[in-house]
Structure formats: C-alpha cells, structure tokens
C-alpha cells in the first residue's frame, strides 16, 4: 500500500536477487587504507547503507587490478594482492547480514592517474596520449603488457569472488583502460588492438572473456559504460549503443551501468557527477537508449535524489535500477525512511559535491551536510538515540547550519532545546549562498534542518538578537554559541569600507545593495562566494571583473564545480583577473577608482567602476561568547582530546552550577559548513 512499491520489486542480476531497485553505484571512497585494504571505516560505511536498506552497493570505485595502476592517490581498493581477500570477507558479511548485496568495481585506470608517487610507474594507454585532467603523460601499452593486465583483471575477479563479494563491475567508463581502447580519440593503434571497431573492442572483450572463464557462469560480471562521451572525436550515443549491443551479444555481461558524458577534460568531468546546477537526471535518456539494445538489466545514476523521481524512472521502465549514490552519501537510511513512511525525513543530497571534490583532491569522501557518513566506525550515529542521562535545557544561539545541527542533535537526544536567531529566517550563510544563480539547491541543507527542528519540537525564536542577559534568563544547562561571522572588509583600511566605498558579497547576494553597472569584485578567498557574487551580478546585467591576488578566481572550488561556474561566467563575459592585489579604492566624481597592484611585478593598474565588492572572508561574531565565557562552568573551553576522539565532553558527567558554554562554527574561525556541522554533531551526540 505504498506509492513506492515499484522500487521494492526485487530483480535478479544473473542469479543474484537484489531486494529493491536502488543501488549505490561505484564511487572512489578514499577510505581504503593500509595499502588499499577495506578496513574498519570502509566496512562500517557500507554496512550502514545495507542497514539502511540499500539493495545493491557497488563499492570500490576505480579499484585497481594492477600495481602499475596506482591506488594510493585516492586510497582506492587494491585488488592486485591476495592480501585483500580476508578484508573482503568482513565487508561481504557486514553487508549480507542486513540483506544487502555488494560488488566491486575493478579497473586498470591506464592514463587516468598520476605517476609521480607510490611505485613511480610509467602510466600506460593505447596510444600514449596525455590525459589533461590529471596532467598525466603515459607510454603506449605493449602487447605483452596488455595480456598481463588482462591476467590482472582475472586475478582481481578471483579475489573478489573468494572474498565473498557478489560480483565485479568492469569499469569501461570515465576513461579507464577499457574505454581508452574503445575511444578513437585516445586509441590510434593500427594493430589488432585498435583501428577497426572490432580492434578497439578487443581489449575489453578479452578481459570479459577471461574474467568470465575464471569466475564461472553464476558470478555477476557487470560493465559500466558511458552513454555518450560528448566529444566530437569521441564515442557518441550511437557508437555506445553499438558497443553495448556488441558486448551484450557475447552473453558475458550480466548488467550494464550507464553514465552520461566522457570524463577526460575538466568540462566533461563536471557532467559525470552533476552538481546542483544540473536538472534532475540529465542523462537518463542515454541510459534508456542503451537499455533499448541490451537484454540484461541497466543501472543508471546521475542526479537522482528523490524517491518520487526514482519511482517515476523505474515505473516508466527507462532503466531497471536507479543509482542513488550521493543520495546515499547524504543519507544512508534513505530507503529505510521510504519504507517507514518518513520520506520527508530524508536528508536529501543537495549536489554541493563536497564529497567528490574532496575525492579529486585525494581526500576522504565526506558529505557537506552529514558528518556521520563514513565516520560510523568512530561511533558517530546516523540515528541518534535518546539520552538515558539527565534531560538538559539547551540554548543554541545562531541558526546557521552549525547551530541548527546542534539543536537538532540535542533535540534528538531528548533535551529541551531553544534556538535563537537574529534574522527572520533560519539558515545563516547558507541562505545567502542560495541566492546565487544555480546555487539555490544548497538551501536544501537548512530546509531539512528546519523541518527536523519542527518535527522534534525545538523552540525556534527568529528575529531575536540574543544578549547575555537573555541567555542568563533562559538558565540553560548548555549554551551552544554558533553566531557565525560578518564580512571582513576592513582588513585594509584603504579599501574604504569605513567610508562606504565598498560593499560585501553578502549584501550583493542578499539584494541589500543594488547591483552596479560596472563592478569590480575583489576576491581573496577564491571559493564559491566570489564566483557566486560575480555570477549573480552578471546575471543582473552588470559588467563584472573579478580580481584575485590568488592563482585564479575560483581556484579553491573543486573539479566538478568550477566548470559550471566558468560556463556561466564566460558566457556572460565576466573578466577573470589573477595575481592582482587591491591596494586602495577612492571616489572620483560619480565613479570609484580601484587601484590594483601586481603581486609579482608591483606594477599598478587602475579600474574605473561604479561598484567595488569585497570578498575577503569573515571575522567571527564572538562578542557574546566573550561576555558569557567567564561565568560559564567551562570558561568556554572544549576538551579537544575528547572531541577528536568522539568521546563525551568530560564536563557533562561532572556536577556543577551554571551553564556549560561551547562555541562552534564560524564564530570561532572561518571554516566551512561541514566543519560547523561536524563539531555540532560530535559535541551534541553525547549531550
């Protein structure tokens, strides 16, 4: 009797029954430590998804089969050694215990890697052509090496099977070795491994044959492919249909995963993990096109975030399985919540791509808004239990993401929580960030928190500027200070903030200040805020130049997000200037003159504009904290050792009068949303 029944129809892949139609597709987690082993963190991360009801987890995105496909950059899983087998057994048990199934993506990444570390290999590729995204030069692979790599695939598949995993997925997507052979853009060979269609297909086919030979008919062997590389000299949708059909007819492949776009330029890479600027399921048609020509189930992931969307896709029969990969990173209990009729309690992925942008920097994958993800092993919970200790009165000052998360967690623990916010609306800086074009979905982070606070009965008082007396009167046992910060425009007095010559990016995005006609944005931070202000102003018709003293505007933004900014900014003819400091601003008649100084030559340039916007980060709002600090039981201090160990703050179990005062988020120092929410969760989970 649920509208989502269609998602809960089990379906077999080969002989393997998947309990529902929702898959967490392969993603490089960057958690396989100890030389690429799936240790505790890794296992718990997948166990949580299985516990949450996920039908199939395909783990180990881009896990390597050979030692000359380096794994250490992304701490991906290393299948080139038998050492992995017992680790897989733990992993498989943990997932199977909860009724889930688990497979692993295996690959040789070819040229899509880095050679300057680990074993310092020569990277290999069909024709030795450099890969731009990783700036990776490579050699032309020799036939002996080809056969060795095929043998490595076989051994890797054997290890997965011996480790009790349910299947392997051959990566022929995102420009790994197999699709490097497929793509005429990269494969210029004239021998039997290139040239003709059959020649380009041969490597993948030999891999599939040899792997099937090893694992037998019943073990799942799938293949992930692109639906269109979106390069004029690459594989288009018709080519991909032909390829899919060709492999399907061999009967060696049990399912196809389909992804839209190639991945070997910055611009195509952004398509692969579509951020919040993309519409829902932008490439579904490509997957549906592949489904038309193959006889086995098709999986598709790319911006499917919502159960209704998933349901609609499966119901219409476009594909058989829906990948909800980031959706699971943001909320591994997504499916349990659908089943429990708690759809509006799902913490929906907002497409901030914090996860993937960390991955591309070789950092462990984390969710911007869910600090418990992948920290399950440390004891950070997704489902927060009620306290068995005393019920405390908690006052949270500041309704940004950190304060709201603190309030949510404290309320889940069963405490009596009051949240005070100066603005009429909750959300803090997220609300500002969401004002920019193509960034509105970021507000999903705080929208969910607002709904949860409401559900949990937190007393939310907006439009209230808290002062010390007000907090004393509330007599909190714990006061969480999360008052955020304010734009830092007076670092250099010559910018003229005092005189009102410059405005902040906040005021621009908030619409507090009318956009000028001719605007210079000075951005020292080089993250979202500066480019968002530029995008906002140019979309309102301003002529915009964004200047930074750093390497390039937006340089701090990750690989799947800066391209979508650039697409928009270049189109609107925003000028991006690097390496210039803003020395001073002065008024000249109706205009403003911005004096710029070249970081490296000291040379000066002037811009005559009518508006100067400063994006220089923020300074903490810490006055209230200092006012209350002395009278608090803990003098505002955190036991950082306990906090880093995810242990309760010792003061919670000590008796004493008065309030405990904690400070988190940007009112301590400027960090980011995740940092504020992580602190909130780890502090309040033991309240």
């Amino acid at each position: 009797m649920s509208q989502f029944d269609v998602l809960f129809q089990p379906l077999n892949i080969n002989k393997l029954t998947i309990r529902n139609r929702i898959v967490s597709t392969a993603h490089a987690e960057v958690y396989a430590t100890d030389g690429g082993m799936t240790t505790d963190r890794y296992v718990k991360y997948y166990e949580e998804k299985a516990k949450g009801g996920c039908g199939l987890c395909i783990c180990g995105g881009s896990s390597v089969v050979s030692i000359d496909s380096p794994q250490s950059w992304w701490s991906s899983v290393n299948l080139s050694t038998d050492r992995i087998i017992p680790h897989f057994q733990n992993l498989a048990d943990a997932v199977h215990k909860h009724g889930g199934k688990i497979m692993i993506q295996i690959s040789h990444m070819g040229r899509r890697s880095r050679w300057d570390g680990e074993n310092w290999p020569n990277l290999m590729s069909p024709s030795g052509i450099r890969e731009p995204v990783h700036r990776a030069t490579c050699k032309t692979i020799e036939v002996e090496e080809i056969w060795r790599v095929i043998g490595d695939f076989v051994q890797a598949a054997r290890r997965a099977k011996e480790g009790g995993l349910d299947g392997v997925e051959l990566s022929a997507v995102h420009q790994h070795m197999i699709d490097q052979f497929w793509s005429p853009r990269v494969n210029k060979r004239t021998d039997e491994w290139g040239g003709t269609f059959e020649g380009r297909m041969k490597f993948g086919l030999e891999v599939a044959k040899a792997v099937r030979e090893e694992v037998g008919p019943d073990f799942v062997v799938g293949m992930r492919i692109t639906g269109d590389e979106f390069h004029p000299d690459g594989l288009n949708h018709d080519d991909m249909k032909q390829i899919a059909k060709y492999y399907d007819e061999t009967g060696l492949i049990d399912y196809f995963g389909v992804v839209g776009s190639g991945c070997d330029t910055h611009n195509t890479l952004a398509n692969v993990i579509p951020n919040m600027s993309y519409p829902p399921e932008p490439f579904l048609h490509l997957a549906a096109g592949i489904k038309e020509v193959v006889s086995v189930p098709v999986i598709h992931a790319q911006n499917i975030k919502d159960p209704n969307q998933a349901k609609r896709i499966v119901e219409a029969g476009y594909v058989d399985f829906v990948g909800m990969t980031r959706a699971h990173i943001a909320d591994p209990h997504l499916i349990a919540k659908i089943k429990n009729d708690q759809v509006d309690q799902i913490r929906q992925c907002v497409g901030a791509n914090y996860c993937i942008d960390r991955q591309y920097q070789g950092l462990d994958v984390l969710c911007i808004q869910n600090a418990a993800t992948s920290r399950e092993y440390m004891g950070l919970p997704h489902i927060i239990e009620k306290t068995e200790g005393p019920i405390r009165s908690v006052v949270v000052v500041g309704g940004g993401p950190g304060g709201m998360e603190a309030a949510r967690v404290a309320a889940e623990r069963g405490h009596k929580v009051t949240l005070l916010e100066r603005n009429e609306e909750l959300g803090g800086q997220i609300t500002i960030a969401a004002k920019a074009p193509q960034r509105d979905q970021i507000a999903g982070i705080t929208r969910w928190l607002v709904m949860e606070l409401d559900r949990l009965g937190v007393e939310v008082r907006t439009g209230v500027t808290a002062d010390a007396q007000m907090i004393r009167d509330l007599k909190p046992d714990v006061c969480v200070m999360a008052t955020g910060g304010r734009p830092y425009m007076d670092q250099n007095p010559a910018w003229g903030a005092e005189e009102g010559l410059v405005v902040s990016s906040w005021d621009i995005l908030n619409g507090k200040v009318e956009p000028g006609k001719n605007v210079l944005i000075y951005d020292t931070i080089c993250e979202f805020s500066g480019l968002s202000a530029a995008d906002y102003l140019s979309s309102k018709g301003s002529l915009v130049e964004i200047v930074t003293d750093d390497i390039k505007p937006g340089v701090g933004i990750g690989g799947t997000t800066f391209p979508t900014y650039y697409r928009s900014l270049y189109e609107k003819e925003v000028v991006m200037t690097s390496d210039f400091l803003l020395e001073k601003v002065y008024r000249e008649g109706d205009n403003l003159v911005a004096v710029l100084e070249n970081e490296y030559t000291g040379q000066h340039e002037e811009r005559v504009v009518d508006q100067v916007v400063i994006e220089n980060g923020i300074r903490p709002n810490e006055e209230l904290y200092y006012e209350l600090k002395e009278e608090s039981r803990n003098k505002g201090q955190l036991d950082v050792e306990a906090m880093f160990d995810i242990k309760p703050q010792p003061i919670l179990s000590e008796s004493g009068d008065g309030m405990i005062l904690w400070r988190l988020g940007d009112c301590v120092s400027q960090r980011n949303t995740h940092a504020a929410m992580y602190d909130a969760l780890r502090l309040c989970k033991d309240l």
Partner: protein
Amino acid sequence: MVIDWLPSVLIVVLLALGVIGALRRVSLWRAGQPEKVNLIAGLLAMPGRYLKDLHHVVERDKYMSRTHVATGGGFVLSMVLVLVVHVFDVNEQIVAWALLGALLIMLTGAFFVFKRRLNPPARLSKGPWMRLPKTLMIYALTFIVLTLPAAGILPEGAGGVVLTAVLSVGVVIGLGELLFGMGWGGPMKHAFAGALHLAFHRRPERFGGGRSTGLKPVNLEGDVLGVAKPSDFKWNQLLGFDACVQCGKCQAMCPAFAAGQPLNPKKLIQDMVVGLAGGTDANYAGSPYPGKEVGNAKGGPDEIITAGLVSQETLWSCTTCRACVEECPMMIEHVDAIVDMRRFLTMEKGETPNKGSEVLENIIATDNPNGYAPSSRTNWAADQNLAVMKEKQEADVLFWVSDGAFDMRSQRILRAFVKLMKHANVDVAILGDEERDSGDVARRLGDDATFQSLAKRNLATLGQYKFKKIVTTDPHAYHCLRNEYGDFDTDGALAGVEVLHHTTFLNQLVQSGALKLDAFKGGKVTYHDPCYLGRYNGEYEAPRELLRSLGIEVAEMERSGFRSRCCGGGGGAPITDIPGERRIADMRMEDASETGAELVAVGCQQCTAMLEGVVEPRPEVKDISEILVDQLVEEVH
C-alpha cells in the same frame, strides 16, 4: 361461592392462554430453516447452562445477578407451588409456607429491579420493561395474601368478597404479565425463549467455558445464499432473537454505536423479533440506530429484511468485533446474523457498498484484497533469507505471512518477527507466492463463495508440506486457519497442526529462554487486544506476559481484555466505510491516551494501521514483535 374459586380459575385460564401463546411462538420459530439439535440433551443441559454459563455473564453485574436469581428463582418456585396450593388444593401448611417464602424472595428481587428502574442506565429499554418490576411485585403480593389462609395465618374467607375481587385483579395483572406475557410477546417472553435458547443454542460448544467463533459455512448449493428474509435464518437463530431482554449490554459495548454509525446491536435483534413475528418497531422503547428514527421499520417472516426492516448501512457498519456477543447475557449471536444478511446482499444482490465490490473483485482476480500482482507477494522477503516450503518441503514452523506482505508498514512487523525467529533458531519456512489471502475479508463481507474457494486452495497448498505449527502475525488469518478452515479440511491438511498467533509463539520462545531480551527502557505502555486475537481466540495473556518479560507493567485501558474496544478495522468496515460521527480508531486512541501511555503495543497489522491512522499527537503504535526486536540481546560474534 363462585368468587372464591375465581383466583384458581383465573390461574388456569391464564396458564392455558400462556401455553397457547407459547405454542404460537414456537410456530413462529419453526418458520425458520431446519437445523439439527439434540432436543432431549439440550433440555437436560439447560438448567446447568442457565446456572453456569448464563450466570457467568450476568455475574459481571453483581447487582443484576442477585436480583435475577431472587426474582427468577422465586418466580419459578412460587409458580409450581401456586399450582400445588391454589389449583390442586394441597392443604399442607408447610407447602403454603414454602410458597410464602418463595414469594417473599421474589418480592425482594422485584423490589430491587424496581429500584434500578427508577433511574435506569441509557442502555436499558423502557416501555413495557418499566412496568415489569411493578407487575412482578403485584404478582408476589397478590399470592402472598392469597396464601395467608392456607398457611394458617389468616382464617379462610377473611377479607370477604371485596378482597377476593381485588386479589383476582392482582392475579390477572400478575399472571397476565408472567404467563400470558411470556407466551404472547411481553417482556417475560425472555424467560421462555431464553431457556429454550440455552437448550437449543446453535453453538453448544460455547457452554462450559468453550469458545465457538468461526462463522458457519454457507451451503453454496442452497436456494438463497445468505439470509434475505427472517424465515431464512435457522429456527434456533430466531429463537435466540426472542431471548433478548433488551438489557442493552451489547449496545453499550458496540464501537459502531459509540461512533454514531447507524448500528445498535440491541435494536438489530429487536428488529429481527419484529421480523419474525411481523409488524413494526413502533413499540420499541430503546435507543435507536444512531441517526435513524424509530417507528418506520416494518417486516414479516417472509419479507426481505433490507426492504424496510433494517437498512443496509446498519449491516455494513459492523466490525464483527464480537463485543456484543461476548457481553450478551442471553448468548445471542449478533455477528452470525449480521454476516448472514450480508451474505445475501453480497452474493445474491452484488450490493457490497463503497470499496467492497472492488475489493472482492481484487480478491477473486489476484488472491489479495488490494489487487497486487500475486507474484509480488514475497518481494518483502527478498533480503530475509527465508526458506520457501516449495523447496524445503518440511519445517517445524510454517510462517503464514498474510497480506501484510504487500504493505510497507506491515512488512516492518514481518521483518521484526523473522528476526526474532532467526535469533531463536526456529526452523521456519513460508509458502511464498503459493500463499493466498486467508479469505477473512471476503467472508466478513459476505462473500462466502470466495472465502471457501480461497480456503480450499490454501488447504490444498498446505496439504503438500509437512510442518508442526502454523504461526502468523495476523489475527484475522489466525482465526480463519484455526477456527474456520476446519470445515473444509477434508484431506486433513491441518490435522495435528497447532495454529498459533505470533505473540503466543514468541512467548513460548521467551519463556523457554530461546529468546533473550533486555529490559524495555521507554515510557508507559498500554496494550490493545485485537478482537480476533482476544474475543475470537481467547488469547489475552501471551502478549501481556511478553510485555511483562521486558519489565513492562502494562497500563491497562478501561476497555481491555474481553471488553477491549475494536480498533475499527475488522469485518471489512474500513472498506464498506459507513459514515458516523466519529472514527472508531480515534475513540480507541483516546482510550489509550487516557492511560498516559507513550506507546500502544498491539498484535495485529490491521490494528497498527488503524491506530497509526489517528492524527498526531498520539502515542506511538508498535506491534509486540517490533518492541521485542528492539530489546534483543544481540550476540556478539
């Protein structure tokens, strides 16, 4: 003098008239359909049934049970002695004294009946029933005075003609009520019909503490399916209706009545009486069907009931909760009657209201009420690693999953139960896609043909496999399997098989130590007895014992145990959906909230759905298996 003989003559005349009336009454019952009963054995058993079984029910109201023993006992004894003393003129003072004693007892009893009637509870009917204690007292007083001479207290002929005349009037009034009224439909009819109903009850298994709750099968080859006219009832059902004392205990317990739906079980039985005797309900002096006026109903033994006597809505309002039956001192079977009449509406007329016909069509086409693809029945268990009988052939326990398999909320109950069984290492299997709806809903909606077909097909499937127990989380399926399939189990598919509700089974596992549980840490818990578990199957204790084993002290609702109030989900009532002033589920939730509970424990997916449908804020609702699973002591591997 003639006048001296008058009282004796009157006694004889009224006795004769009473007997004639009684014979006429018997002929009215005989218009019903034949049903075999052992007349002699029944009559012999009758006094015992009266003293034990009937009084067991009446005992619940101590005041009434005492006054009834005094009044009824006093009357029976005095009537015999009146004949001895005043008709056969036996002149033994000791007999006269005995008669005086009997009359005094009766007088006392009648006086207390009178007192109760001064301010009667709303459930009681008024009208002639208000008169009864007075006429009973007149009878007693009259015969006391008449007997004084025989007892030697007054000289013969004292008081003269005037007194004799007055006493004669008293005899006419008293015996008119008691003897004439008994035969001709006055309130005292209950004594006569009630006694015979005890003797010839259609469910003799109920006597001596037994339970008989399964509906009787329809003969699908019969001329009419179900009951169209009063004369389509079995003769002893008609007799049963006549036994009604209009005490209104049924009405006071009926959830549909309380919700303001157009059903009052007492009125329904009285309408049946109108129907069997012919006439109108103009003289009915009790509470009406909510929202309907009294006086417009008329019928006769051979007139279609729903064409003027009882409206269809009345019949479809019933949740088949059996609260009325459980409460009725006269052991009348309301649910049988209601379902009998529904059978006619559904099978002969195709007039099941609202979603009813759609649901029946679904059941026929897909073997489940919501019309899900039969092949998706086991989807819920895709990740449960449950053995399927088809492959396993044999298991200790067959887990009857029931149609909760299709419902996400119910699946949580199923999964919890599976987890508990796995922890206890139960050797269990399911039928998988071979299972079909138990037929419960079809049967309660009057479609016995579909029920019978489902029962037979399920039995044929069950017959292929070996198992010792059937366990189910669904009390409705439990009831069908345990109490109703037997009528069709010609091949003995269930012979020697124990059918258990999951709470009973889990309780065995917990008590034997096979399941280890932590103490429950939440707040106050109350327990809602599902009708089909409690009243239908007498299982009140296992769920409570389970909760106790978690350290929960159940905060009982006022209406609990055999007096539990239905959740509103039975008998297809949510499907026929007859409007009232309130929703039954809301009332039940109020009962629960009054205990201050934060959690309502239940043992039925249907109750869970109904109670969870109540708007928040309200206590949480969980099946007992869900509560247990949270307290499982997980072994660390």
